[in-house]
């Protein structure tokens, strides 16, 4: 009986701690950014109804987020419907890095998007990749929000 009570109390204490720690380490999510990745729509253009033209990345990262994959799936579907259209994936980086490395980073981001499109059946003949590094920011600001808008891979119609 006493043991049960003790166990219950201990469990309560542990639960409380977990709640505390969980609260403490949860990342702040503003309206426009999740962690480091831009989630807004300010700079987004549309290839077609409901088909956003770009995906965003975290600092120094080339990994596709869940949201990015959704967007790319929509793009793949649109490209399957319009089988004559070819695209160029333009990869970009923010300004907080060295110029040459950013060129390579942009290429890697665009390539990550290309690989994903290919897994949805788009032929690589229809997709070319072009990196602009940090040369063509979409937002000229010097703050984390502006930088997050610039870390992107944009799908552009080639014909």
């Amino acid at each position: 009986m006493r043991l049960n009570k003790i166990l219950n109390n201990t469990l309560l204490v542990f639960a409380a701690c977990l709640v505390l720690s969980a609260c403490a380490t949860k990342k702040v999510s503003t309206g426009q950014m999740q962690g480091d990745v831009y989630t807004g729509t300010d700079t987004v253009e549309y290839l077609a109804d409901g088909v956003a033209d770009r995906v965003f990345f975290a600092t120094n990262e080339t990994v596709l987020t869940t949201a990015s994959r959704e967007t790319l799936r929509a793009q793949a579907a649109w490209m399957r419907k319009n089988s004559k259209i070819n695209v160029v994936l333009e990869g970009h980086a923010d300004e907080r890095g060295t110029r040459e490395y950013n060129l390579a980073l942009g290429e890697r981001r665009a390539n990550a998007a290309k690989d994903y499109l290919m897994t949805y059946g788009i032929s690589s003949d229809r997709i070319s990749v072009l990196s602009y590094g940090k040369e063509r920011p979409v937002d000229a600001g010097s703050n984390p929000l502006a930088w997050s808008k610039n870390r992107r891979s944009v799908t552009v119609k080639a014909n």
Partner: protein
Amino acid sequence: MNRSIIISSVLHLLLILVTAMSLPFLAKKPLDIPPIVSVELIQIAEKTNIPFAPKAKKIIEKVKEKEKKLVSEQAPPKKVKKTKTKTVVSVEQNEKVDNKTPEAVPLPEKTVKKIETKKENKQNPDKLDEEVKQVSEFEKKEFVDLDNIAKLIDKAKIESADEIKKNNDITQDQDRNIENTGLTLSEEDALKAQIFGCWSIPLGLPYNENLLVRIKLMLEPDGSVTKTEILDHARMNKPGQAFYKVLAESALRAVKLCQPLRVPTTGYERWKELQLNFDAREMLEG
């Protein structure tokens, strides 16, 4: 009753432990270590002065000016006057430093106008009297440049550390100095401090080579130099050692510029022949 208390306190401790471990890990702020103030152990002679106190602490706050004068009791008037001229010019330089803004060109423009110098020369006699009265007074003058401050900080830390090292590594010569009392520590300080002002070390020297120039001097009782001899003469013209020639020339210029040297007032026989070992390594390694 007791048992519950014990179990309760144990559980409380456990809670504290778990909380402490699971709390968000605060980002460690970089430690703000104040610059090291080195302490030198020196022999106490008749008059002593800590030669080159670490710059770092002083420089960090603001530009400070301290005057260094070594006045010997029996200084012949001629000698003191010349020293004064130098100090006067330096004062002018320091004024310029005060007026400078940080955005100005890094190195101060030391424009010395002939007219100004002459005027100051005339003022000498007054200052002369003051000086003669001030016996065994030690104040330190440092030419500190606003813009060089930050750069000197790092250097200074290393310099101070090296200063101690240097004192330990000192060749037997220095020990010999102390034993034979060729020059007391204070007399040596005076000479070193004087040469510090005159020796413009060429910054272009390679800092990983042997940068030692030994010059033998023959001196008059008033401190003027009658003969200089570079001991490693052969090295001056060695191919690939062009920097050595440059270094030797800078040392010779320092000696010429600093005449008459601050020599002790007594015991001419001791120091009529002096050897200065110019080693630029410490200044350049920084």
